[in-house]
């Protein structure tokens, strides 16, 4: 049972990561910076609970705020450039943040133990859950409360005016602009919300793994973040959840017996999926969105 609880924790955190990219992708922008916001959230939440002794819920709140603030700050200059340039700009930003954590030392002596992040070795002993006696099942429930909450909010967005505005910008920028939608405001707000979700996910991630380091937030993670919604399809939030379960539970855990052939299969399956279902595994076929 512990194993399945653990798997559910991984699926939960990756769903948050995927959803953070989902809302940005709705506006037609591809962001490779989600791993950076995820990492910022992880370090902020970890430092707050370990070094400052905060309770986990406000610490997660703080990591979401930090994630959204950075995303907003990145959004303004990065969204001056369009489409594919944004991919590059956010990719470089993500690598920049990772390299920052690679060089980031901040340690405090606590008893005979030195705590805090040390550059390439990473940040050990984020032991909030074990110290407070949470069982794996409780941690899983805690994580899924946040996942369900975020999914509900995004589901509601999709049904509100704001969701239609997001999709309008994603479908056709020119048309959206001509009916009076402020493109920059919409894109930056989507980035900001995405940053908050990624920061929250990162904060949770730091606490269930108990050890984070710069390589947890590399390009591969950023790729996973956009892969989930794209593979799952952008029709609704459940596509992302389904893609996370498909990738994490089926491809990574289910095919564990295949050894390192599994990794080969992973890339090949993404290529195959995109050839067969260009609009995502669960996405509905739309007309051509970009002329």
């Amino acid at each position, binding site marked *: 049972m512990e194993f399945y609880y653990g798997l559910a924790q991984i699926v939960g955190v990756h769903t948050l990561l995927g959803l953070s990219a989902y809302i940005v992708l709705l506006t037609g922008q*591809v962001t490779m910076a989600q791993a950076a916001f995820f990492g910022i959230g992880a370090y902020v939440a970890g430092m707050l609970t370990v070094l400052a002794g905060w309770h986990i819920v406000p610490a997660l709140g703080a990591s979401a705020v930090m994630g959204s603030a950075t995303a907003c700050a990145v959004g303004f200059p990065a969204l001056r450039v369009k489409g594919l340039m944004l991919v590059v700009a956010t990719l470089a930003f993500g690598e920049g943040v990772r*390299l920052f954590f690679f060089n980031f030392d901040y340690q405090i002596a606590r008893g005979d133990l030195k705590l805090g992040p040390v550059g390439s070795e990473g940040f050990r002993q984020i032991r909030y859950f074990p110290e407070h006696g949470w069982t794996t099942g409780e941690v899983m429930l805690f994580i899924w409360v946040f996942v369900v909450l975020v999914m509900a909010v995004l589901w509601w967005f999709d049904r509100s005016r704001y969701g239609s505005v997001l999709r309008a910008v994603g479908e056709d920028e020119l048309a959206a602009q001509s009916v009076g939608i402020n493109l920059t405001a919409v894109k930056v707000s989507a980035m900001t919300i995405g940053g908050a979700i990624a920061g929250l996910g990162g904060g949770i991630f730091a606490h269930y793994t108990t050890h984070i380091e710069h390589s947890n937030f590399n390009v591969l993670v950023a790729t996973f973040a956009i892969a989930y919604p794209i593979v799952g399809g952008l029709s609704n939030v459940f596509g992302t959840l389904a893609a996370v379960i498909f990738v994490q539970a089926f491809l990574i855990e289910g095919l564990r017996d295949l050894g390192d052939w599994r*990794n080969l299969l992973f890339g090949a399956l993404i290529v195959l999926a995109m050839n067969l279902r260009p609009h995502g595994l669960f996405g509905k076929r739309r007309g*051509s969105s970009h002329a």
Partner: protein
Amino acid sequence: MLDFLQAVSDGMLFGATYALIGIGFTLVFGVMHKLNLSYAAASIGAAYSGLLILKVFAAAPAWAVFLSAFVGGGVIGYLVYLTCFHFIPLSNPLAPLMSTVGMFLLIDEVIVHATNGMPQNYPAMFDDVMIRAGGYTLRGDLLLVFGLSVLCMIGLLALLYRTKLGLATRAVSQQPVAAQLCGIRVARVNAMTFVVTGLVGGIAGAMMGAAVGALSPVLTAPLTVKGLIVTVIGGLGSIPGAIIAGLLVGGLENVFQLYRGVTERDLYVMLLLFVFLVFRPGGIFTAKSGRD
């Protein structure tokens, strides 16, 4: 001061490989308006495929390895086109991006699988030649890297501006519909673009292996980022821009390494990109606003 000059010249010679990778990204972008994120991985993969010849003829000289990397690059380029672009509708912006990401992961894993993740030694030429002038040295192998890269660029420009295929390529990049109406087979031009960029990537990968002395799959992600930075700084779709930006990034990177150490080096390269994004978002050579 001498250290500084030395760092700049070494970096610029090595930067020629960045310029080649940048050209590959820029060409595909110019012709298809798509980003081929698997390109740097494919280039490293091509350099690995050059090593295959050593399996057949253990005593094959370095130039034979480079040549087979060149050919391997072309083949891989065509395969990438077939698997990631040919069957996916061009109107869909996300699917080909994602399929090239899948290809990137696949190539990475094939390399890891084939070599058990161990770095492979790569042959170099003229690595015992040193040209000295006072305290200043020019490494022979780096000069070869630079020279071959320049040859590659000249060949590419000749192909683009002196041949029928080049004319067709430029036509498709300007106006795909009009080009098609003139009887140009767009799909074939797209495929050829991938073969040509693949050939260039093969050389770039081999030169990188020769300059570093070894190849490892860890190179692919940083090379992708560097190549994209070069592309953006040079101006998307501009070949001269990519060349200048490649040399610039190579030179500056080495200077940052000299003063701030190897772990912080790339951080400053990213900052350089953001300086460009804020003050000159179109890059050094802003491409004329084409289609769309």
